[in-house]
């Protein structure tokens, strides 16, 4: 019998069945996240199912992040409904301003190695960076978890992505993730898990891995898993909410595809409107005028992302005239870090608009909305037409450093050429 992938090991453990790729199993989830974008519908499904008490409130958590702060009376009412349900059931709730649910799942030590953590939001794949099988579900699936604590899952085949070497200066994990999107395409990993491996993994710290795992859903992946190592355990020191056991792929595990990415050979990349897999080098896209720059989201809203962007902007002498720079930390912890270390003051001095920690402008549900025919460059994960709330805007996706270079020049520019 062949060995098992990380996905096969975790889903076997959580279902109590010796499962292989292709099997459908019923799993007990360790934790489920509901956001204000998905939970209100889940409450309707739960009521329609005849639900009264949730199965295990300790394994659930809500985040008010998509409408933060509520931009309308209707969304404020959704928040009130979630707060009341959470209080009645004893479910933990992160209120407006605490940050993006995915970031909080990671910071609060709920996404743990070897775990199965689902989120009623597609970017739950982010937890794979911690060797946790994180995957996105809908509102009805969340309601079923309220009812039973369980979910059915098809055990995915896995694509192994071998990372080798070390990212060069000026090149970031976002560039590596866009290269993977270019190679796989927007549906290249549909129904499958991506498993990162190779000596390049050890060169990436946890925040780097979160970027890569987060973007795997843009290739259709069900999960984007890293092995756990000392960097994982260091991050979880003092955060982990309970004991955990990491899942390791067997040497003779079976993969449906193997891809090699040499980190040394990468250059800054940008996804062109309106598809994440329309990837071009920053060098070739240079000169494209930019009027709005967005730094934030569950992809690019962590402290190090802002540090990288601030350093480029400082080296370049600030934000170009005519560019709106919007800064939205992924969480209160990130905001506090930036406030403490002076980064926030730097951005304010450069004229940035500072948003409430949360999903912000990413999907047009709150935050700044671009004007007609505006070109936006963003650290986010999606650039679909209309994504930020205006169908006539064009969205480019790049690393924090490349976004900062564009803010400094008023046009797409290579961050490696700033300050030289």
């Amino acid at each position, binding site marked *: 019998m062949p060995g098992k992938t990380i996905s096969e090991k975790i889903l076997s453990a959580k279902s109590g069945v010796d499962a292989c790729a292709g099997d459908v199993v*019923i799993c007990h989830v360790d934790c489920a996240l509901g956001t204000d*974008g998905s939970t209100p519908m889940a409450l309707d499904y739960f009521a329609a199912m005849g639900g009264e008490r949730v199965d295990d409130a300790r394994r659930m958590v809500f985040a008010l992040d998509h409408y933060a702060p509520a931009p309308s009376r209707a969304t404020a009412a959704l928040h009130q409904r979630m707060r009341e349900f959470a209080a009645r059931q004893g479910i933990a709730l992160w209120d407006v301003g605490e940050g993006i649910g995915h970031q909080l799942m990671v910071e609060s030590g709920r996404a743990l190695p070897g775990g199965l953590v689902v989120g009623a939001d*597609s970017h739950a794949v982010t937890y794979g960076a911690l060797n946790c099988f994180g995957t996105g579900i*809908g509102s*009805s699936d969340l309601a079923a978890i309220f009812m039973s604590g369980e979910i059915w899952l098809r055990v995915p085949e896995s694509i192994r992505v071998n990372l080798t070497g070390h990212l060069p200066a000026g090149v970031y994990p976002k560039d590596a993730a866009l290269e993977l999107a270019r190679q796989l395409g927007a549906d290249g990993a549909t129904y499958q898990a991506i498993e990162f491996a190779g000596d390049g993994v050890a060169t990436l710290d946890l925040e780097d891995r979160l970027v890569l795992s987060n973007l795997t859903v843009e290739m259709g992946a069900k999960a984007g898993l890293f092995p756990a190592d000392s960097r994982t355990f260091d991050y979880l020191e003092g955060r982990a909410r309970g004991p955990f056991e990491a899942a390791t792929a067997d040497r003779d595990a079976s993969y449906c595809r193997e891809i090699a990415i040499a980190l040394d050979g990468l250059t800054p990349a940008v996804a062109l409107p309106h*598809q994440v897999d329309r990837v071009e080098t920053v060098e070739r896209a240079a000169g494209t005028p930019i009027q709005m720059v967005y730094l934030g989201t569950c992809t690019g809203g962590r402290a190090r992302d802002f540090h990288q962007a601030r350093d480029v902007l400082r080296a370049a002498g600030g934000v170009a005239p005519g560019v709106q720079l919007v800064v939205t930390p992924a969480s209160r912890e990130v905001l506090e870090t930036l406030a403490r270390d002076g980064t926030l003051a730097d951005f304010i001095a450069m004229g940035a608009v500072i948003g409430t920690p949360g999903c912000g402008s990413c999907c047009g549900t709150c935050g700044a909305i671009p004007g007609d025919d505006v070109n936006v460059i963003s650290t986010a994960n999606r650039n679909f*037409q209309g994504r930020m709330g205006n169908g006539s805007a064009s969205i480019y996706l790049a690393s924090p450093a490349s976004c900062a270079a564009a803010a400094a020049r008023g046009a797409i520019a290579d961050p490696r050429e700033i300050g030289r």
Partner: protein
Amino acid sequence: MTAFPFEGRARVFGDDINTDYIIASRRKRESLDPQVLRQYLFEEIDAGFARSVQPGDVIVAGSNFGCGSAMEVAVTAVLGGGIRAVLARGFSRTYYRNAVNNGLLPLVCDTRRIAEGDRLTVEAGLVRNLSTGEAMATEPLPAIMLDIIGAGGLVAYFRKYGRFRVGSA
């Protein structure tokens, strides 16, 4: 619950139709009512769709239908438009789950020879194109999905069984 097979009219889309194109994220801020949301179906990519959609229409798409956000309104708004099945060469996994859970039939088949307006009959396992005479097999659905669709969706399934049945997995 829909009786299958049923006859309908093909409404054709291309590849990589993401959920924000089906229904923009911002629309769910004001209402989650499918009868409200149906007015905005495909507004970014096909401005006339919402006005022309008729009960029984069948969405016919290329690969990766429903990619992007896992928002379930992208399924309920489609059902609100009177659409009961989506045929595609492939689905994103979250759209596929949400469709099954709401009783919207997601069928994987080779859709390349179906044209806008073709008359189709649709059921799990088989699609007939009455306009061209072609019959197409669809990929089989796993037992648990057939169980959920057969029950009329996940709400009806849970009302009936109370939890997932191990035997159906």
